[in-house]
């Protein structure tokens, strides 16, 4: 008799746990969809985008809509999957789209000019002295662009859109 009442209690407790889990799962799904297809906050760090982005780390908002509709252009700061290490995402500025002629300096004394091939973009860090970018690994296929950075959230004195 007591066993039956315990089973009843357990059943209702299990049902409540499942309901709560379902709510949490739905929330995580919504978060995941927003992160991947709309807008996501990202922590970016490193010296390659000084002075635009700090060395020790900035939290920026990146939107994931523009690159799907072809609205990424020269001058945009973008999140790009590294062609050298598929697990890393880089933050660089687009300096040339396909068909553009790009002049760059790998070595301060020696300049080169290339034309960006079809379907690719040329990305460079703002701090050319400490950035590993298209000057080293060449133009990057457009399909590797993950998002466009448009807003900085942290640190608070850098709150706002990024300067060109």
């Amino acid at each position, binding site marked *: 008799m007591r066993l039956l009442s315990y089973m009843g209690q357990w059943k209702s407790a299990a049902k409540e746990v499942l309901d709560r889990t379902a709510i949490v799962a739905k929330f995580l799904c919504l978060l995941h969809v927003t992160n991947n297809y709309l807008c996501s906050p990202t922590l970016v760090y490193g010296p390659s985008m000084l002075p635009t982005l700090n060395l020790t780390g900035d939290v920026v908002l990146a939107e994931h809509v523009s690159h799907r509709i072809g609205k990424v252009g020269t001058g945009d700061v973008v999140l790009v999957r*590294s*062609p050298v290490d598929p697990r890393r995402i880089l933050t660089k500025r687009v300096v040339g789209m396909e068909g553009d002629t790009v002049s760059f300096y790998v070595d301060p004394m020696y300049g080169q000019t290339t034309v960006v*091939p079809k*379907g*690719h973009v040329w990305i460079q860090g703002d701090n050319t002295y400490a950035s590993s970018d298209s000057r080293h690994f060449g133009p990057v*296929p457009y399909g590797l662009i993950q998002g466009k950075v448009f807003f900085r959230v942290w640190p608070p004195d850098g709150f706002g859109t990024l300067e060109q």
Partner: protein
Amino acid sequence: MVGLIGRLWNLQYKSIVKEASGKTLAVAKFFCVLHVTNTYLCTFALAYGPSMIPTFNLTGDMFLAERLSIKFGKVGPGDIVLLRSPESPRKVMVKRLLGLESHSVTYVVDPMNSDRCDTIVVPKGHVWVEGDNIYNSRDSRQFGPVPYSLLEGKVFCKIWPPKEFGSLMKSGMKDPDL
């Protein structure tokens, strides 16, 4: 009398709206599940074009491609992969993977005109893809090694036409003497 009719109409309207939104929610949930399965588990696609003859027909074959192997790095030479074209970011193409990073790949540069072969070492983070029909395929021999992140799926099963249904063998080279 008018008030009664008004109240009845309200009740009907509310229940219709409730049923419609319930059905819409169910359809939306179904599409969400479909989208998640498509993007993260398994997708089917239609491949057309001459570059993968004889594995895939010219006019179009339907196949299943799974997405987990790519994320876990479990692809290797000989696999047929789905990848985003490095020349046209909106196009997805089907080719065979011939070399991973640091593999040495030997390929025929221009089989229509000469027998010249070239060897290249695939750079870090890249893969080398070629179509099975090297006479009519635009692949790594033209646009170079492709970054690994452009891979989107691994093809494992052909589902249309029905007489060619079945899993795709690792080595696509059919020896006519066998």
